Each structure stands twice: as C-alpha cells, then as structure tokens.
C-alpha cells in the first residue's frame, strides 16, 4: 500500500469538496473492495474520503418502496424484518453475500458503485426497477450499470441511497463461487406491475435484464415455461471460474430455480 491522506467527511458537500480538491481522491465506504485493491497496489489514490461520518446515509426505510441508505451494511439488510416483510428476496440476497465479516462491513452503495460483474445487488437493482439516488440526481436502475466496473456515476458523484420497487413476488437464485461466495451467476425473477422481470448478474460484463427469459415467462411464472429455453452466450464472461457457455447454462438453471421457489 502506498501512502495516502485520510479524511472523514461529515457532510455530502464536504466529501465532494475533499475529493475534488485532491489530486486523485476516492470515496471509502466499508473498504471491502477498496482497501484490498490499495494493498495490492492496483489503486494508489492520494486521498481517501471516508463517507462513514455522514449522517443519513445509513438506514432502511420501508413504505411504498424499500429505500436503503448507501452506507447500510449487507448484514443490516439481511436482518431487517421490514425488508424481509416487503421484499423477502432482497433480504435473502443480502444474507448470502460473502461471509459474515464482509456482510458487516460491505455496503450497498459500495457494491453498486463498484459494478463488480459478480456482485449480487445489481441483479436486484435491474430486476426491481430500482432508482439510484445520488447527491446530484436520480438514476434509473436500468441505466446505472454501464460495463465491467463502470457505472453511470460521474467522477465524484456520491450514491446516497437505492430505492427498490416492491414486487408482487420475487426470488433470487445464485451459483456462488465456493471460496468467495461471489455470484458466478445470479438471477432474480420478479413480478412487478403485472410484468415479469429477470435480472442477471455474474454472467456478463455488468448486470442486465434477460429479454429471452422475460419473454418465456411472460405467460406466467412456471418452471415448465422455461423448458428448452436457452440463453445466448455471445457476450458473456469467460474466466478461470467459468466459460461463457457454462455461464449461459447456469443463467437458465438459476432462472428455473428462482421460478421454482415462487411456484412453491
């Protein structure tokens, strides 16, 4: 790790200023990705601006929608009775991220800002038509993930919360890496406003909705509707964990499992 300046901001505007005033500033949430990256010298920011001292970024509000503050750790989402009551699949998803240590430190803001192709939350962001609130604007979930480790966030833009629509029903199935638990493939199937939405993570450069699976399920959420349905592997990832062809196969299998959970 290289030497850097540490700042703890107490407001969003202070965090913005600290970062824009630095040569190469970066925000710190739980540090679950940022710190190892710095230790491995893959990132060498001059200034690290900690968001942990900013009030109002940590918390869960459930009403007509489920809003999760950017600094809310995964463990709080997993343990929230209100989240479980409104969107059980979201609490399940959070509870199966990494291990207990990662869930205690890792945050939803850090998870989506990073756009790791293997992260779990992105599947829910696209499947549940979420809105990403930032210190500058609102970004539709479907527009947020742009590419591998790339989002619609502008330099210095801070995610403040993620607001999920409450589906009539939803389920998440993932094929985890046995060591890290990151999703080799994760699929969320949701019925929202009378339409079926299928969010896929782990498989491509970033999370996306599967038009093919959504079309297959448009007539109703039944496992049989997925019989013989395959997923194209053209733009899927191939790496040491799985080939593109195997990922395509897993997307179909995870979709079946998610639908199977809903069918009872």
């Amino acid at each position, binding site marked *: 790790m290289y030497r850097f300046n540490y700042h703890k901001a107490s407001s969003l505007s202070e965090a913005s200023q600290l970062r824009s005033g630095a040569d190469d500033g970066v925000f710190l949430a739980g540090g679950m990705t940022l710190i190892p990256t710095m230790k491995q010298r893959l990132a060498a920011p001059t200034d690290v601006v900690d968001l942990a001292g900013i009030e109002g970024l940590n918390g869960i509000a459930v009403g007509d929608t489920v809003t999760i503050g950017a600094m809310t750790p995964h463990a709080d989402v997993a343990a929230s009775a209100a989240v479980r009551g409104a969107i059980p699949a979201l609490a399940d998803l959070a509870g199966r991220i990494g291990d207990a240590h990662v869930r205690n430190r890792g945050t939803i803001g850090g998870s989506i800002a990073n756009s790791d192709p293997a992260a779990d939350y992105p599947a829910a962001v696209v499947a549940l038509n979420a809105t990403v609130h930032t210190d500058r604007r609102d970004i539709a979930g479907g527009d947020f993930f742009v590419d591998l480790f790339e989002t619609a966030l502008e330099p210095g833009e801070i995610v403040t919360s993620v607001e999920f629509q409450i589906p009539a029903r939803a389920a998440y199935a993932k*094929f985890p890496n046995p060591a890290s638990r990151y999703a080799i493939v994760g699929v969320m199937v949701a019925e929202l406003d009378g339409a079926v939405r299928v969010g896929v993570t782990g498989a491509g450069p970033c999370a996306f909705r599967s038009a093919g699976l959504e079309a297959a399920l448009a007539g109703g959420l039944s496992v049989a509707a997925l019989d013989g349905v395959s997923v194209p592997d053209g733009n899927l990832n191939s790496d040491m964990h*799985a*080939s593109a062809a*195997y990922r395509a*196969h897993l997307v179909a299998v995870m979709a079946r499992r998610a639908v199977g959970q809903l069918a009872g």
Partner: protein
Amino acid sequence: MPSSPGPTPVTPCTHNPLGVKGCGEAGAIGATAAVMNAVTDALGVKELAMPATSETVWNALRG
C-alpha cells in the same frame, strides 16, 4: 543438522502380500482417486481431468 545414519527398523505389514504400508499423505491420495473413480463411474466416462469442477462435470455430461 548433521546427517545421522542409524538403524532402519523394518516391520513389514502383515495384512498384505507385499508387506507394504502407506505413509505420509497416503490417506489423502487414496481419497482423491476414490472420488475421481466415483465421478467417472457415475458419468460413464473413462477419463476426467482433475479437479472435477461443476463445469468439468457438466462438459462430461454433454459428451
């Protein structure tokens, strides 16, 4: 440390015709072969490269 030549006691195993005994990682090595034999038997294939990851098994299933 200086080498220390000394007596090498020989106690052949009485339970097999060769009198040999497993030592070191014998247990671990046997387990790997047993599991791979079980996997190839279940899949009906002759050979499978280790490790038998889910993708390796999936590929073997597809022939």
